[in-house]
């Protein structure tokens, strides 16, 4: 080392001299090199830069760093995924994270695999298998027995029926006395099971046994297993309720008593709805369409009513064209547009297409009055009714009219309401056709169950009514705002039967905003309450008991406002007021409440799984709860108050916004629940230690409520509705003829009222703006449409159809919307419900709700929110995370 260098780099040289006293020359050079590189290149401060080489050297004593450098980095990433990159820039916070995560990894993740654990698991699995095996055996015996019974007792060749069904359908039940005796016996047994007091341990054993059976039944298919589940649910829920009434009311504390009574009433409501629901849906009828005689001269005459008030012509046009093209003899079919808006362009349109056009001087009693007035000018034997946006399939009448011819007592045949557009929930939550929508439970399951008890009621559209029956009851009922259900009720009282065909044969638009949706439900709720006051189905003649119970359940459904709000606020009673609304020790609550809920959820999931996913019912109810509270209570007391507000359809929502008005109730409830959680946490740390158990349960419940409310809040964020014409997914074959005369087989993947999307492997033959002839068929006719290519992508082509003549418009509707199989897939696309998966979806939606709130918050609050968010994110980065585990397939 020369002195000139020493002057130029004094620090370096000093260090060199110092270090060379301790280490070898090579090491010293390495240390200084590293120091320079850290200090100069990586801009690390002096102390760190100096220490790093030593740390590296020290580490290299244990681990061969260079060799394993990559593995080391990868391992570091896998085990400590939350260290912020680049590591060195955030060195201090990363060290804290490192330490916390190491502790976490040591204690939480590292669990020694004990052999005894696996044995226990084995035993449990073995038990599960055993139970499910024995239940499957039971089912096998059941089927065999059924066959035996059938061979012994009946001569006809019915398809395979289980012993249960054979028994259930057997003649023996016609004898009323036997029916009553058996029912009484069952009730007696039930009463014993329900009221017998168990000690806590006994209850625990009892309920675990039931849960195990329920779990084992998961894999057993068939009706018998469902009946068993229902019986178990009835038993456990009744037991629960009995326990609540007899053992958990605190008579000493008036506040707790009042609040507890409120909760108890809400739970009783839920229990009633549960039991009635089981009754209603225990055996959906799945009625099959009856075919008509080959001779069309025997077919009756049908009038089709299309009532309209303020909907645009573009909505009514497809419905009218489709109705005119229904496969029914032309001389026996008349279509009428009933226009309460008295618009001349509708009259012209009707004349153009050959439909009738009816108006009336006033607009009394809305739709019912409209139809009553029309009945004076029409004379068909039957009346089919379609809302102006419900486009019927061409096979609608041939699927439904057979029921009337088979049984002259039938006065109504109802079909499902299917929507080809997303309802507000689906649109705002962006889960269209991923989760069954709200009305699928009713039309897919409940009405089918009603049909079993001959309690189907009219839903206002997509149905056919017998003129004679309507005349007998004096026309459509107009005293309530749900005139459809009331009309059906009157006809049933007059001794007529009703039918439901669970095959969608028409589709329409869903309500296009949350407020419109809620408005519609308010109307239904009010109407149902009015019916109960003015024409109570529980009283009066003409109905049998099952019918009354079905109507009662429909009514109860709309009274869910108060109970839902009670459930959403109940846990806060303990947190805020220290009121023991469930006056029982923590363990008892845990053993009674939680398993019962699980059992009930499991049964409901089994019964409703195709039509409604678990936990979404709570979300729907929460959204509506506040709003249907008032109308139903008012209507119950004073049925004549309140006006009919028409649901608007076909409006356009042009920008994304958050509907603060509508979401006020959820926000308030959410706020009190959130505050409750905070209070609960405080009390956990600083409050009475004996109350920790109940506090935890209450907080758990409050957390659940927060998740549900979060999802409700998410729904109020109105998504932008871009398209005016809705695009419907499809899958049917068609052909195209290109300009050069060549034809191609194609598949129609979607359509709207002015365009079609096709898919073909030869899409390269087409270019944008080419003119292509589209060949689609309806039945045995082939139609040709002139179209233009508007876009191509891969093997898909978008075609636009413009300026069609009326004839061609009609043909187009026939080939697309009116296809007999257009809506058949509506139920089949959904997997059966899986409660845990469904709950995760609700959680995700809830988070989305919260983020929406923050995103749409008013400007003033933005900085605070920004700060809070950043703070939370920063703190969260310290929490230990699960190490990333790669599976063996990577």
């Amino acid at each position: 080392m020369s002195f000139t260098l020493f002057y130029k780099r004094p620090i370096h040289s000093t260090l060199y001299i110092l270090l060379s006293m301790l280490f070898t020359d090579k090491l010293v050079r390495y240390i200084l090199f590293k120091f320079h590189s850290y200090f100069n290149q990586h801009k690390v401060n002096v102390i760190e830069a100096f220490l790093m080489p030593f740390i590296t050297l020290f580490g290299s004593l244990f681990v061969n760093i260079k060799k394993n450098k990559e593995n080391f980095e990868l391992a570091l990433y896998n085990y400590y995924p939350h260290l912020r990159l680049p590591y060195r820039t955030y060195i201090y916070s990363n060290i804290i994270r490192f330490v916390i995560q190491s502790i976490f990894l040591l204690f939480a993740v590292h669990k020694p695999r004990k052999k005894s654990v696996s044995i226990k698991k084995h035993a449990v699995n073995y038990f599960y298998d055993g139970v499910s095996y024995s239940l499957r055996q039971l089912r096998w015996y059941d089927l065999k027995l059924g066959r035996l019974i059938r061979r012994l007792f009946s001569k006809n060749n019915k398809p395979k029926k289980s012993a249960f069904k054979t028994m259930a359908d057997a003649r023996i039940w016609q004898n009323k006395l036997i029916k009553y005796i058996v029912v009484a016996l069952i009730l007696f047994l039930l009463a014993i099971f329900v009221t017998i007091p168990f000690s806590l341990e006994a209850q625990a054993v009892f309920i675990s046994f039931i849960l195990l059976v329920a779990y084992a039944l998961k894999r057993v298919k068939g009706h018998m297993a469902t009946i068993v589940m229902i019986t178990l649910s009835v038993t456990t829920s009744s037991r629960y309720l009995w326990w609540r009434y007899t053992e958990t009311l605190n008579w000493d504390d008036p506040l707790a008593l009042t609040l507890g009574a409120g909760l108890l009433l809400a739970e009783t409501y839920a229990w009633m709805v549960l039991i009635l629901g089981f009754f209603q849906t225990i055996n959906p009828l799945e009625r099959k369409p009856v075919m008509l005689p080959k001779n069309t001269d025997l077919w009756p005459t049908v009038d089709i009513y299309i009532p309209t008030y303020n909907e645009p012509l573009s909505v009514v046009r497809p419905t009218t064209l489709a109705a005119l093209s229904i496969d029914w003899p032309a001389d026996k079919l008349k279509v009428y547009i009933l226009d309460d808006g008295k618009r001349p362009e509708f009259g012209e349109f009707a004349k153009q297409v050959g439909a009738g056009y009816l108006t009336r001087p006033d607009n009394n009693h809305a739709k019912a009055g409209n139809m009553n007035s029309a009945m004076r000018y029409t004379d068909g034997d039957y009346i089919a009714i379609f809302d102006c946006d419900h486009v019927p399939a061409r096979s609608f009448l041939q699927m439904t009219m057979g029921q009337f011819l088979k049984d002259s007592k039938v006065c109504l045949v109802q079909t499902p309401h299917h929507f080809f557009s997303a309802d507000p929930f689906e649109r705002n939550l962006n889960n269209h056709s991923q989760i069954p929508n709200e009305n699928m439970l009713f039309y897919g399951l409940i009405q089918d169950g009603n049909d079993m008890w001959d309690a189907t009621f009219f839903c206002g559209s997509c149905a056919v009514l017998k003129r004679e029956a309507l005349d007998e009851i004096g026309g459509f009922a107009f005293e309530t705002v749900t005139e459809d259900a009331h009309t059906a009720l009157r006809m049933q009282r007059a001794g007529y039967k009703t039918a439901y065909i669970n095959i969608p044969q028409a589709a329409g638009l869903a309500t296009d905003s949350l407020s419109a949706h809620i408005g519609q439900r308010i109307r239904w709720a009010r109407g149902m309450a009015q019916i109960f006051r003015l024409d109570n189905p529980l009283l009066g003649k003409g109905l049998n008991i099952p019918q009354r119970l079905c109507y009662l359940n429909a009514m109860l459904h709309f009274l869910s406002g108060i109970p839902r709000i009670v459930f959403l606020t109940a846990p806060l009673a303990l947190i805020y007021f220290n009121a023991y609304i469930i006056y029982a020790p923590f363990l008892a609550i845990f053993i009674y409440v939680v398993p019962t809920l699980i059992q009930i959820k499991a049964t409901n999931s089994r019964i409703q799984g195709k039509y409604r996913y678990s936990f979404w019912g709570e979300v729907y109810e929460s959204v509506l709860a506040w709003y249907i509270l008032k109308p139903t209570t008012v209507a119950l007391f004073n049925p004549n108050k309140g006006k009919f507000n028409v649901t608007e359809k076909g409006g356009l929502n042009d920008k994304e916004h958050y509907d603060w008005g509508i979401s006020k109730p959820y926000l308030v409830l959410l706020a009190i629940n959130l505050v409750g959680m905070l209070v609960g946490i405080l009390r956990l740390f600083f409050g009475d230690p004996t109350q920790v158990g109940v506090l935890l349960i209450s907080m758990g419940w409050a957390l659940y409520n927060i998740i549900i409310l979060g999802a409700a809040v998410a729904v109020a964020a109105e998504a932008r509705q871009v398209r005016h014409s809705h695009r419907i997914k499809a899958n049917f074959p068609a052909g195209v003829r290109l300009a050069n005369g060549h034809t191609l087989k194609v598949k129609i993947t979607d359509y709207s009222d002015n365009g079609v999307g096709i898919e073909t492997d030869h899409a390269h033959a087409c270019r944008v703006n080419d003119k292509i002839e589209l060949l689609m068929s309806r039945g045995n006719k082939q139609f040709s449409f002139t179209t233009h290519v508007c876009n191509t992508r891969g093997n898909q082509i978008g075609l636009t159809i413009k300026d069609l003549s009326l004839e061609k418009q009609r043909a187009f509707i026939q080939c697309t919307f009116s296809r007999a199989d257009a809506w058949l897939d509506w139920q089949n696309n959904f997997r059966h419900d899986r409660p845990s998966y469904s709950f995760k979806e609700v959680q995700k939606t809830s988070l989305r709700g919260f983020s929406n709130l923050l995103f749409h918050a008013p400007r003033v609050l933005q900085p605070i929110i920004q700060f809070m968010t950043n703070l939370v994110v920063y703190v969260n980065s310290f929490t230990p995370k699960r190490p990333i585990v790669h599976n063996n397939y990577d």
Partner: protein
Amino acid sequence: MNNLATKSSQILTSSDIENLARRFGGKSDDYIEIMNTQKNQKTINKYALLKEIDDALKTSKEKK
């Protein structure tokens, strides 16, 4: 006889009725495709040659 069996045109005919019938276990033959007699008459009346043939057939039928 032949494993082409009864393959019907994919593009044409009542495939939608077949799907429907399959859905509820009915038979697609039971469905009646309605004949549009008014439209047929309109077609005959529209073209003179068709009208003449139609009239000739009608009169010969009446003679029988």
